[in-house]
């Protein structure tokens, strides 16, 4: 018997195990809360409230920099397969990423206010063994993008400063200044879109990304068709990121 045969035979396993590994997988870490995790979350919440209060006192949130979709040349780009995913959201901004880079959208200004480009630094692989992993800090100020280490494929780390709109390679991350943002994923209970996971923000605001479906069956979907949905109670608002 060869290892190849076993890998092939795994392809014939019962459909229910394939579904289970997909649905159970994405909810497992939600079910696996331990007292230590809950305590850590409380620390993050208290820390986040403290930081938010500090930012309010100083009036410093983000600069006025704005980036237009046209400037990025994104609005008419056709979609591949992977839609941008939200890695951070609050009442003011949402941070998304896909294989092209990291996008920062301002709900206040209703436009893109930042972009980090993965293409010049060869970080566009976002799935698989050498994937670029993207995580945001719990105050939305920094986003880490790093490749997975592997044989013949050294790990590379980048840091995106949201306020400065600066994306740079770093030799190491300073963990003391970074607490990872963990969204409240409520997809299984209150999904508001078929195109992404649904997260709950403060004040019971639900958020996700979606596409504006067209009547024309031959229509090829573009970035400008992508929007963020924010729903509070029955009030639904769409934000077109790349228009």
């Amino acid at each position: 018997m060869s290892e190849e045969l076993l890998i092939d035979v795994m392809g014939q396993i019962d459909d229910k195990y394939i579904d289970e590994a997909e649905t159970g997988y994405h909810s497992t870490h939600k079910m696996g809360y331990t007292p230590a995790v809950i305590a850590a979350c409380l620390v993050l919440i208290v820390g986040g409230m403290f930081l938010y209060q500090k930012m309010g006192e100083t009036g410093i949130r983000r600069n006025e920099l704005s980036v237009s979709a046209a400037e990025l040349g994104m609005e008419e780009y056709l979609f591949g397969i992977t839609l941008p995913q939200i890695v951070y959201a609050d009442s003011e901004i949402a941070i998304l990423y896909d294989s092209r880079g990291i996008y920062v959208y301002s709900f206040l200004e209703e436009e893109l206010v930042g972009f980090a480009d993965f293409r010049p630094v060869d970080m566009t692989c976002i799935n698989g063994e050498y994937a670029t992993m993207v995580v945001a800090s719990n105050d939305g100020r920094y986003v880490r993008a790093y490749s997975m280490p592997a044989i013949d494929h050294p790990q590379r780390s980048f840091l995106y400063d949201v306020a400065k709109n600066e994306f740079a390679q770093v030799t190491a991350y300073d963990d003391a200044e970074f607490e990872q943002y963990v969204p409240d994923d409520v997809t299984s209970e209150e999904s508001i879109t078929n195109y992404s996971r649904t997260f709950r923000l403060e004040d019971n605001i639900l958020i996700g990304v979606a596409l504006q479906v067209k009547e024309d069956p031959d229509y090829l979907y573009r970035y400008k068709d992508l929007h963020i949905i924010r729903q509070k109670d029955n009030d639904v608002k769409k934000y077109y990121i790349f228009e």
Partner: protein
Amino acid sequence: MEDNHIIELYFQRSEDALKETQMKYGNYLYSIAHNILCNHEDTEECVNDVYQKAWESIPPQRPTRFRAFLGKMTRNIALNRYKYNSADKRYQGITQQFDEMDNLVATDNQVECTFDANELAAAVNAFLGRMSKRNRILFVRRYWYMDSIKDIAGHMGMTENNVKVSLKRSRDKLKKFLLEEGFLYE
């Protein structure tokens, strides 16, 4: 859109079927193929092949679990492409999974035996049915979805070392099971 509505579109030969399939399962299929191929262009081609094959298969087929149906197609097409191209070392994506399975089937003084691959598949299904749900998800994510150890650890809230240890134990149990069932000899 519900799966049965999408399948109905296939039966009506409406091209909306493909659009809805892409909308609902495009990311899922992409991630399966990309885990195996780790190459954007090849992955896109593979997923497009899946849409074409789904279009040709439905009807007459009417899958009861549409997601798994598409996922299996994607995995098969991606693996075939991987095998076809791996001779020139273009892909590194799943060499680790092959190595791990190689260790499973390697036995001292092993005697090759002949059997139907369907029988082996039935045995593997029986083995999966005996596993705990958590270990089964780990095993299927690693050897069906071909996820990296790091990804699995992140999703399951485990350390990478814990994932490796759990997978090693599961492989050892599978090896013991296959020995007992006569698929392996020592």
